[in-house]
């Protein structure tokens, strides 16, 4: 007898398979296996069907089911039915998984292909990453993430971020790389042992290697915190190297004599003795620093990490006052102003953040005021740098540090009585869909908070699972992070990383979206139009931060409240809510939800009004925040941008300007391309060729090139709805 299987294949009948299936079902019952019954049922079924030449599998299962029902083990029959149902469900899931994989193959799976504007889904390495992501997410949802969390994620009440990487892999989100420790103490990279660099050229080359490695072991952004301070010693080494050359060739000194001199930029006495040497070494070291940072920028923009994308890298700088630190700041900005390639296109990475500080660079007369001018020029041309107000970040987060990646901020943590920042990281995010709760609460504030409590309970469970997944993980899974120092530790392969997660060393973040839509839905009015509503919006965010603070006290883990940069999420939540609640004016009709505490992008206000509106939120959401304003092109007018920066400096910790930095490679026009139905068009010469256009927009925390790779639908609609604040 032949058995016809579901996939159409044919196999010879085998009674043992019936016995195995019955035993498997019995094994899941309280009474466990009864071989006698199993054998009898199998015999009965075999006898009944033995006259047939061919039988399909479903038919056999029906017979087994009915024979079991008539046996003394009805409980086993129930288990067998349940077992069949689960298998059917799995098969259905399997086919939906297949659809996703197929969609990747024929490039129709937009959800996966466009989820991240930094990934070119058409290329093979990225496809491998996306394929792994589809499988990892499916597996994690089926077997790993707590059921309640999976359900809430899938129905859109919350978003358990980055399931394509975590929790299938024990991998975390974003970090500050301990570059200083790695360079000073040496480390192993692949097969090579790397020693402390002896020039800025080598130091930046190694930095690029480290960033590439780190980016392959985490899924979020990485930041070099105060890169000017960290790499300054290597500029000093380059200066000394050139100086020694000068002494040898210009003054005929021998090696021994040279070795005894204290060569340093501020050794005045020496320069008076060897003036030509000083000028020579200064010029060469400055040139070398510029070139070194040019290489670094190119490397980062040409790298593809194991995650199939350019590393999300950020450089924070601007506070250093020494000559060496200043040279690095200047090199970073001059390179960025110059742009990439012969056409000088705007680089997308690394993100640049410039620290503004009174007494350093804020006012005319401050020692680095010239560098602020350079930063302003750079920002009008390249959108970056964004700025950090040093005093504001310090007061709001408790200590000074640049964000990890685009906007995640660490709190205070001390080791051996010293504040520690570099090497710390964020364990991941779960974001709450606040507008949905508001819609469900139907105007009742009390109901909203009741629903919020319920949802936060699930969010917390999700976040605790993220931590749980990292606990007990051994250092060997990511040698660059845990054994070679990027996460500030030098562990043995079998050591666990648990101590790196605890006592607030790492953060774990609750995210939120749509304060604008939430307030509109709950109170029926635009939040900006009534200052009482300003307070209501703040109340919600303060409430969330109180919860994360409580979780921190309870668990000892570094819970924080994070203003999620929703790239695809702004679309996903809104679309799911539209399907569920219909088209609601100003809420689900736009195709996107507004990010975190941000003012509705379509609200026409001045940048100063926007800053005033948003300035109180970071105080509560101090695990992650940024304020943006939209401008016309400021290329001609850096003075205007400076007036805005100075205003922002006093009020918000972290500020970015969205200004058109498009460039036409046909006519040389710099400004804003017009978005037309047939693509982006140069307003000066009408050029529409994406190959000779550089069109850059800020997508969430980072920049991207929509002319080359379109945004997801919701983000595109949000970008189009943005109004200029001047």
């Amino acid at each position, binding site marked *: 007898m032949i058995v016809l299987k579901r996939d159409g294949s044919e196999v010879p009948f085998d009674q043992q398979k019936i016995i195995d299936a019955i035993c498997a079902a019995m094994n899941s019952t309280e009474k466990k296996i009864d071989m006698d019954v199993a054998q009898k049922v199998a015999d009965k079924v075999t006898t009944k069907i033995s006259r047939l030449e061919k039988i399909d599998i479903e038919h056999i299962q029906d017979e087994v089911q009915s024979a079991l029902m008539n046996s003394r083990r009805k409980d086993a029959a129930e288990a067998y039915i349940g077992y069949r149902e689960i298998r059917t469900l799995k098969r259905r899931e399997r086919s939906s998984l297949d659809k996703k994989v197929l969609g990747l193959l024929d490039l129709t799976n937009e959800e996966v292909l466009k989820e991240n504007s930094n990934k070119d889904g058409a290329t093979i390495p990225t496809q491998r990453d996306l394929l792994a992501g589809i499988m990892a997410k499916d597996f994690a949802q089926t077997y790993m993430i707590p059921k309640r969390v999976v359900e809430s994620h899938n129905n859109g009440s919350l978003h358990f971020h980055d399931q394509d990487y975590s929790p299938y892999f024990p991998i975390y989100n974003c970090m500050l790389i301990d570059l200083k420790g790695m360079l000073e103490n040496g480390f192993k990279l692949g097969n090579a042992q790397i020693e402390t660099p002896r020039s800025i050229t080598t130091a930046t080359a190694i930095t690029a290697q480290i960033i590439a490695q780190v980016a392959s072991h985490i899924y979020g952004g990485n930041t070099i915190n105060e890169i000017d301070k960290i790499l300054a010693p290597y500029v000093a080494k380059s200066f000394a190297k050139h100086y020694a050359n000068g002494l040898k060739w210009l003054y005929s000194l021998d090696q021994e004599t040279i070795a005894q001199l204290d060569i340093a930029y501020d050794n005045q006495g020496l320069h008076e003795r060897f003036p030509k040497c000083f000028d020579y070494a200064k010029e060469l070291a400055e040139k070398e620093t510029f070139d070194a940072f040019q290489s670094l920028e190119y490397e980062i923009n040409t790298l593809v990490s194991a995650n199939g994308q350019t590393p999300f890298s950020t450089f924070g700088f601007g506070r250093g006052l020494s000559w060496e630190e200043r040279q690095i700041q200047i090199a970073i900005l001059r390179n960025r102003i110059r742009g990439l390639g012969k056409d000088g296109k705007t680089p997308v990475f690394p993100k640049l953040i410039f620290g503004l500080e009174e007494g350093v660079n804020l006012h005319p007369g401050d020692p680095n005021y010239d560098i602020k001018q350079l930063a302003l020029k750079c920002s009008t041309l390249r959108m970056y740098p964004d700025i950090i107000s040093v005093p504001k970040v310090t007061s709001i987060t408790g200590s000074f540090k640049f964000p990890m990646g685009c906007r995640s901020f660490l709190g205070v943590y001390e080791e051996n009585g010293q504040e520690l920042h570099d090497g710390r990281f964020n364990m991941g995010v779960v974001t709450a869909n606040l507008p949905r709760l508001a819609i469900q609460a139907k105007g009742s504030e009390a109901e909203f908070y009741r629903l919020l409590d319920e949802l936060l309970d699930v969010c917390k469970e999700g976040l605790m699972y993220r931590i749980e997944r990292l606990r007990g993980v051994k250092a060997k899974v990511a040698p660059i992070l845990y054994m070679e120092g990027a996460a500030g530790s030098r562990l043995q392969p079998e050591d666990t990383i648990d101590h790196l997660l605890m006592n607030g060393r790492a953060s774990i973040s609750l995210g939120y979206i749509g304060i604008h839509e939430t307030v509109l839905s709950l109170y029926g009015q635009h939040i900006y139009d009534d200052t009482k509503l300003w307070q209501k919006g703040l109340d919600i965010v303060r409430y969330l931060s109180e919860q994360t603070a409580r979780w921190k006290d309870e668990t000892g883990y570094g819970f924080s409240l994070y203003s999620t940069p929703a790239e695809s999420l702004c679309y996903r939540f809104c679309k799911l809510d539209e399907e569920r609640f219909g088209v609601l004016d100003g809420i689900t009709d736009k195709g996107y939800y507004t990010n975190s505490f941000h003012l509705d992008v379509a609200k026409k206000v*001045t*940048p*100063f009004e926007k800053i005033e509106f948003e300035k109180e939120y970071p105080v509560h959401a101090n695990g992650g925040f940024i304020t943006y304003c939209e*401008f*016309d092109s*400021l290329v*001609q*007018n850096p*003075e*205007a*941008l*400076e*007036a*805005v920066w*100075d*205003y922002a400096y*006093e009020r918000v910790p972290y500020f970015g300007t969205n200004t058109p930095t498009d460039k036409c490679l046909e*006519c*040389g*026009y*710099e*400004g804003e391309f017009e978005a037309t139905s047939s693509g982006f068009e140069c*307003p*000066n010469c009408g050029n529409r060729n994406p190959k000779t256009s550089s069109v850059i927009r800020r997508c969430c925390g980072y920049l991207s090139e929509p002319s080359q790779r379109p945004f997801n639908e919701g983000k595109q609609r949000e970008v189009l709805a943005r109004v200029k604040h*001047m």
Partner: protein
Amino acid sequence: MYIADYKKFDVLNGRGLRNSLFVSGCTHHCKGCFNAASWNFNYGFAYTPEFEQQVIDDLQVPDIRVSGLSLLGGEPFQNVDGLLGLVKRVRKECPDKNIWAWSGYTFEELIADSARLELLTHCDVLIDGKFVLEQRNLKLKWRGSENQRVLDVQESLRQQAAVRLYPE
């Protein structure tokens, strides 16, 4: 005098953050004018003492560094009577603010007319000349076509000849 538009914190018309006043009425009628609606001398809203006070106050808002006032149009120099009082007040009450003006007339034409010259003497920067569509170039700073010039008014008056603003 009628006002076609008034923009606070304008970044496009002149250096720094500026408040821009677009006066109504212009007889130049340049082809491709960016603001043709304002050719009509009765377009927009009437200029009142209250509005004038508002303009003065807006130049002095606390905490925001406004560089000055920009006069556009229409044609400011066909609204001399209406504007003279305002620019005099700005000079007196907001001594740290500068005044930029845009005109379809050239510098040479303006100084040949005593009323227009008087208004000009209160300005710091003049963008002069008609907009010529054939010479349109969006890459230019503060102006729309190649024939137009960005002039340092006080220096030009001293030398009685057009002197370009440096740096633009």
